[in-house]
């Protein structure tokens, strides 16, 4: 009888821990909602030769479709994508010389955020010869994608794109070249890599 009570108590404890963990994970996803903190990169502004910083929150994104041409099919597709978005945040830094930014201190804090529950890396491209690296991360919420982050590094360039909200990857290409979003070059058949 005593052991049964002990087992029951253990099970209750485990259930509570699991339930609490799930709640914490849900809360983490809910609070950040796909938005990652990239303001720490602002310190690179002083070193960069060129800098572009775009912040489009949900309030502004809701207004954008008013500027779309109803007769332009591309713009109509872009309108569909924007309808599910809650934010587009872009930071582009171009430097005169190599080594102006440090992967460890400048980029790693952003990568750490992308290790949070829900995020998975779907693309990783490295070109040792050109020193280029592209990483694409998705925030999966069941079958839905709630966020996307692109990190693109070159010896003299650093690009971070953070798109928040429900994203249809097949339609995402329509955003390239608009609202400060550079060409993301995400292939349709990119598969998530489990971490």
């Amino acid at each position, binding site marked *: 009888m005593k052991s049964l009570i002990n087992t029951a108590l253990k099970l209750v404890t485990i259930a509570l821990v699991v339930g609490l963990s799930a709640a914490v994970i849900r809360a983490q996803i809910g609070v950040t909602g796909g938005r990652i903190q990239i303001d720490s990169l*602002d310190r690179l*502004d*002083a070193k*960069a*030769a*060129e*800098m*572009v*910083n*775009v*912040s*489009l*929150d949900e*309030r*502004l994104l809701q*207004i*954008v*479709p*008013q*500027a779309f041409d109803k007769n332009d099919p591309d713009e109509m597709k872009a309108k569909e994508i924007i309808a599910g978005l809650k934010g587009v945040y872009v930071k582009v830094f171009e430097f*005169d010389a190599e080594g102006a930014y440090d992967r460890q201190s400048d980029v790693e804090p952003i990568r750490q955020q992308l290790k949070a529950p829900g995020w998975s890396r779907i693309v990783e491209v490295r070109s040792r010869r050109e020193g280029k690296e592209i990483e694409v991360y998705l925030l999966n919420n069941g079958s839905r994608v709630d966020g996307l982050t692109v990190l693109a590094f070159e010896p003299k360039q650093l690009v971070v794109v953070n798109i928040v909200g429900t994203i249809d990857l097949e339609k995402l290409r329509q955003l390239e070249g*608009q*609202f*400060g979003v550079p060409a993301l070059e995400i292939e349709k058949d990119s598969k998530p890599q489990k971490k």
Partner: protein
Amino acid sequence: MQRKFISSLLITCAACSLFLSSIVSAASKSLDFGGVVKLIESHYRVKSKGLPLVARMGIKVASPVTRLGGYGGVKVALFEDQDFSSPAKGTNISEVLRVVLRPEWSPLVEVRSRQSSELTLVYTKEAGDRFKVLVVTIGQRDGTAVQAELSKSKLAQFIKDPERMSRKMTDEATSENEP
């Protein structure tokens, strides 16, 4: 004795919270256009020519309103032939503006090029059913600060191509041509 002490403590606490809340509400107000102009002046140790040229500004202010539908309430400050090469050390104007314009204004676009020595900062703020846009452009020798009220459709065009639209807005607001 104890009751007296507690009541005086309560009164002190209430006074402190009132004082603190007044500070918080004052701090939560963003800087207005004049404040932004003064801040640019002190940051770069430059002088704007907007205020003494009220008559000239009247012409300039009228041009974007009449030529471009959807613009209104335009305010312009010009920094002509000034030296922007020595800003206040240890701070960055975009960071400073972001702080002083918070929470009412949100940064939309910041573009800086060392090669062309140009900095463009665009902020937006809701104003009822319209939006206010503040565009600050700093060059090597010249600078401008333009604030305008935009309709939602005009702002949508602005967001679609903020770099081009902020240039256009600044150019038209500072244009010498009468409408």
